[in-house]
């Protein structure tokens, strides 16, 4: 674990040194396809990074202790001037009590999102740990060069 130096310096004891104790998002990707092949993720990206629906999200969360629940939510705007409302929600249980995980990978498919800008939010044990915006391009053919 980071922060444990194994020695004392300037009168500081190991117990008071800073230690990572809260899970954090290390990586977020939106991909064409993700498969679990022999315990390793095999990812396929969209051409020219143009995300089309349906797509896969791929998340890496680090420093997880005990069990927990990840909730992934995507929002959309039904009209130009309206508020963003929940469109898709997914839940994942992970971990076991008494165990520490250097990282856990989550991936799943998201369907039914219309073209446009969407806000996404990740909650771990009901607390927001990350949010952002992503764009889904039209599902028609990509524009010719």
């Amino acid at each position, binding site marked *: 674990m*980071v*922060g444990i*130096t194994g020695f*004392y*310096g*300037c*009168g*500081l004891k190991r117990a*008071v*040194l*800073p*230690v*990572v*104790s*809260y*899970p*954090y*998002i*290390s*990586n977020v990707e939106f991909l064409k396809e993700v498969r679990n092949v022999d315990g390793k993720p095999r990812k396929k990206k969209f051409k020219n990074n143009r995300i089309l629906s349906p797509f896969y999200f791929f998340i890496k969360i*680090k420093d997880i202790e005990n069990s927990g629940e990840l909730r992934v*939510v995507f*929002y959309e705007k039904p009209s130009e001037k309206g*508020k*963003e*409302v*929940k469109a898709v929600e997914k839940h994942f249980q992970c971990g076991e009590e008494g165990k520490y995980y250097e990282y856990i990978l989550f991936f799943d498919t998201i369907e039914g999102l219309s073209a446009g800008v969407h*806000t996404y*939010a990740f*909650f771990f044990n009901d*607390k*927001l*740990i*990350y*949010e*952002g*915006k992503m764009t889904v391009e039209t599902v028609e053919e990509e524009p010719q060069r």
Partner: protein
Amino acid sequence: MEKYIKYLCLNLILLIIASIPVVGAEADLRLKGDYFLYSDDHDYLYGGGNISLKSGDYTIRADTVYMNIELQTGLLYGNVQAIKSTKSDKSGSETFSCDALFFKGIPPRFLRVSYGDEIAVTGDNDLLTLYSLFDKKSPDMLKTSSLYFEFKECTVDKNKKIRAKIVIPYMMGLPTVPLSKFTIKRGEWAEKTMLAFNSINYSGIDGLSLGFLLRLREKAAAGDYDIKLYERGLFKMEDPKRGVLFSGQGKFKTEKKELLNYTLLYNSGKQSYNLKLVHRNNLKLFGYAFSQLFSGQENRSLFSEFSAEVSINRLKYIVPKFQVTHDWKGSVSYQVSTPVNILKNLNLQLNWQRRILESTYHSDTADFGASFNFLSSFFSLASNYNFSKNLLESAIRKNFSVNLRMKPILLLMDNVTLDVSSFYMFSSLPLGNSNMTRISPGVDISLRSAGVEIPLGFKIVPGFRLNHLWDNREDNYTDFNYLVSLQREIGYFRASVDYTTASRYLATDFWIEGNNRKNINLSFEYKKPDYYSFLMRYYWNNNMVLENSSFTGLVQLPYDLKFSSFLLYYNREKRFQTVEVFIEKTFKKKLKIQGGYSLALKRFFIKFLNF
């Protein structure tokens, strides 16, 4: 002189010690939590676990914090609870809660976001762009920095100074000595009179140097000065062995305006100095500036120059400027210039100058110049005219040029670009008792293609260029340049073959003489941006003999280290012309260190380069 320098150094050191500790900046943003990480390269802070932020009346609790120190913007996540204690109002305090809290500035303004079945955004609407665009850097990204700190508590002030408690500094990923307190970021210099240690540096020019900042912020005077103590003797550099370099700029002022500006430079090693005093003012109808320059060096006489300038502001189409300079010894110059602004896209500049030099030699010249630029949708036109007369010798020089450039024409669905430009140059220079005139008009046509896809994934990129020059004194000639490039890309790999020919034809009486050269370049490139790039090139000459080969490699290593190599091999002579292999590291975007081997130097080397 050396005694004086030693005395100055000792006094500076005593001043620095006396000025530390500086009166601490106000602790405007106080953060506490289980874990914080600050990256020196990114100037960014992350915190996770039981986060508490206090600023002004606000106390905020959250689970995670991301903060851009440079922009003073940040974001809190988790079960965010904020309490605003209003001391004046005894009825109590305000509270609010949300999922995400964006903040900016010290003291901060806030924007609250809650993510339920709907997203609710409330607070300062000026922070809405922050809500859309705030860049979150994870601890993994911050730890790629060659210098970062982990700690449990810190204060960040308005000058971006960060003082932390229970700190572990990390250099190149390795932990160093934990400290109970440490200033991990010095921040901007405070706007007050002060003397502070700025930097310690090494370069091939100054040797080892210590830099100090002297800042003056008083009612009647303000300025910033750099004091550099340098030592070259220790590194066996040429004279001067050591010295002080004092430079800076400042002003004398009242509350409402500046009275006198100055810039100064003094180098004790070279015994040289430079002082410029400027007084300027802008009135309703005109503006003026007076300046006096003093410049001197050991064993050289003092150079002094006075300059006066007046510009008329309120005329419709012109802004005439009159300038006079005098060196107090007899040399004087007068200048009148003005832009002419009649049309929006038309720039005309007129300039007349007379210069009389009375120094080791005498000269008296008058110059008139005009330059013209016109931009339209279809073309751009630029022209220059210069007329110069030597009043002592009655010799006249004239130059005139015109350049007409058409806007690029796009053909074949924007795949082909046609560029046409023409030029005309005229010059008349004194030669004996008469003038020698030279006239050379010309035209340049180039045709470039973005490329055509052909089967098997290849791409052909042709190009053509024609340049014709007429010359009244020498032969007219026409240059033709052809290029055909065959390219193939597969993932990160790229190969190309370029065939080029360059021909020149001269028309002499009835005959056309010419020569042409051709060559082939073959190149292979394997490149992954931000990771590595390798380029191998082969060059065949006009006789289709392989002349040389080159290799350029670059690999990005952890902690911002770069491994670079360049090799150039002469195939005909079967030897290496150039071999350079080195590792490079940049520190704080100011100092670059390179170490490696160079065939040209025939040894291993270490270089220190300043930006």
